[in-house]
């Protein structure tokens, strides 16, 4: 785990897996903060605490995103402050267009057409990203987006094997496309298993190993985000986070200092000791699908 930051060259553009409060690569994010990084260009499709923490720790020199929010907990405090102050340069791109741009990168084509967000002010704002195409087939003015190829994809998964095969049981967002688009793919996972265990349910493999450069075991590696069906989001620790971010100053510095002063194992003890981890697992079990017949 401590070797992870060394796999990400200085100044890299790093795309983060997961979405909303689901399955962001939080152990990797913490490790980047521990390494004191301040040089990264992050790409976040649907960012939350992953982005806010990187911004709060001043790890980013640029952010490309479609949304950053702490949802019920409020606006993403550090993100908001840093953009309002002009400290963090941003590129805001609508989510579907960003997805398609990353897919273009994955396909090794320079652009892809899509039924784009023609009414959005973002289009005119980014003429180097949102374009139009005409073809010898008679098409004119078809909306297209420019390919995006990140240097590094940082993802979290349920299990990997030594060959780099990556399985997610729950939310995988667009992690497969991020792996295809990026030059280097680093995956943390709840557990590393023998290849036979992967082959036993090959349809759960979201990313084939030949696209993956490093796999690192990181139990509860998405915490405080969710990794369904293993554990739910830790809404209580998210609330603590937001309170510290809103307080800012010493309170937030103390939060960062605690992360910097421990490793992932100590982090898990601090956050999930005393049976808290088991309750997060039980929350998955407690979730209710409404019986349509009975309702």
């Amino acid at each position, binding site marked *: 785990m401590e070797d992870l930051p060394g796999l990400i060259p200085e100044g890299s553009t790093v795309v983060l897996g997961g*979405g909303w409060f*689901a399955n962001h690569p939080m152990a990797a994010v913490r490790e980047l903060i521990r390494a004191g990084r301040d040089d990264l260009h992050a790409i976040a*499709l*649907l960012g939350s605490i992953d982005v806010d923490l990187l911004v709060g720790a001043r790890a980013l020199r640029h952010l490309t*995103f*479609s*949304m*950053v*929010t702490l*949802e*019920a*907990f409020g*606006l993403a405090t550090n993100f*908001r402050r840093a*953009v*309002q102050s002009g400290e963090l340069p941003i590129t*805001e791109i*609508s*989510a*579907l*267009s960003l*997805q*398609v741009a990353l*897919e273009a990168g994955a396909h090794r084509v320079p652009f892809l057409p*899509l*039924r784009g*967000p023609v*009414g*959005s*002010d*973002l289009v005119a*704002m980014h003429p180097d990203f949102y374009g139009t195409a005409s073809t010898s087939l008679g098409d004119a003015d078809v909306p297209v987006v420019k390919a995006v190829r990140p240097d590094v994809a940082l993802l979290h998964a349920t299990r990997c094997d030594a060959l780099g095969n990556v399985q997610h049981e729950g939310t995988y*967002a*667009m*992690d*497969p*496309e991020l792996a295809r688009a990026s030059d280097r793919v680093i995956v943390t996972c709840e557990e590393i298993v023998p290849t036979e265990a992967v082959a036993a349910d090959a349809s759960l493999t979201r990313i084939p190993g030949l696209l993956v450069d490093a796999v690192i075991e990181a139990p509860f590696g998405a915490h405080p985000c*969710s990794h*369904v*069906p293993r554990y*739910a*989001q830790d*809404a*209580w620790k998210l*609330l603590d986070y937001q*309170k510290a971010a809103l307080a800012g100053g010493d309170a937030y510095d103390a939060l960062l200092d605690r992360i910097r002063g421990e490793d992932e194992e100590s982090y898990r003890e601090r956050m999930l000791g005393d*049976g808290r981890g088991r*309750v*997060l697992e*039980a*929350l*998955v*079990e*407690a*979730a*209710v*699908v*409404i019986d*349509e017949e009975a*309702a």
Partner: protein
Amino acid sequence: MTADRYEIHELMIARIAEEMTAEGEHIVLMGSFTPLAYAAYMLGKLTHARDAWLAGYNAVGIGPVQLSFTGSEAAAYRSATSTASFNQNGWIFHLGTRGLLECVSSAQIGADGAINLSAIGDYDAPKVRLPGGAGAPEVVQNYRRMVAYFTRHDRRTLVEAVDFATGRRTPIGAAAREELGLCPGAVLIVTPLAVLRKDEDEQPFELESVHPGVDVETVVENTGFELAVPDDVPVTGEPSARQVELLRERIDPFQTARFDFLTGEERLGYLEDLLAREWDRAEALVEQAAAR
């Protein structure tokens, strides 16, 4: 049978749920956090739109899930009949022609139906930097129905022109849309006071209905853009007793959909309360397991 008592968010949910139909080739997706909209989707699925297709996260063909901060995602996967990456769902549902109903809740909406989820004030030096629109810019353009809902109806929210158009459905007129291969469908605004709708690009929003006890004047006064008011303004239908019961007992027992109606100060306390109940439920399960 109309419910004897209901809260305003329940009326809004029931009105939005009317837009849920069971059109076979269309789907409704749970995307960014809009609990009031989710409640409407689930209500439709449990009542008049039983054949509707729902999706959330990477789970497709999900059942109606009980809303909770920590459980909705798990319930979605448990009930899913298939899974797909965001990109696959993006192409087929969001960017294709199969999206049925998209609800957005933005900071502002303009007379032209544009929504602002990006910034209050100057985009480059904003007074408030907002979260950004996620997929809303493409989705409001490509879905069959767009509903913008707001937990307050005032001239700061319903404005003549938004500070920044994160997304804008264009064109709005059905004929113009169909000519471009886009699904037809109006822009609907649902607020605590009324329902507004815009069917044509060159026509202003029209007052479709006012909620019980709200007078037309109040709506007009609190709307920051021109509103066409018919001679006879209907009253929005009230939720039925069964709808309210489903919402309170099945769909949203933790009352997540009330959340957006609270002020910033109230929110964290309400959230702590609500989360305490979710925690207790999970802890009880752990204790049960330990006892076995």
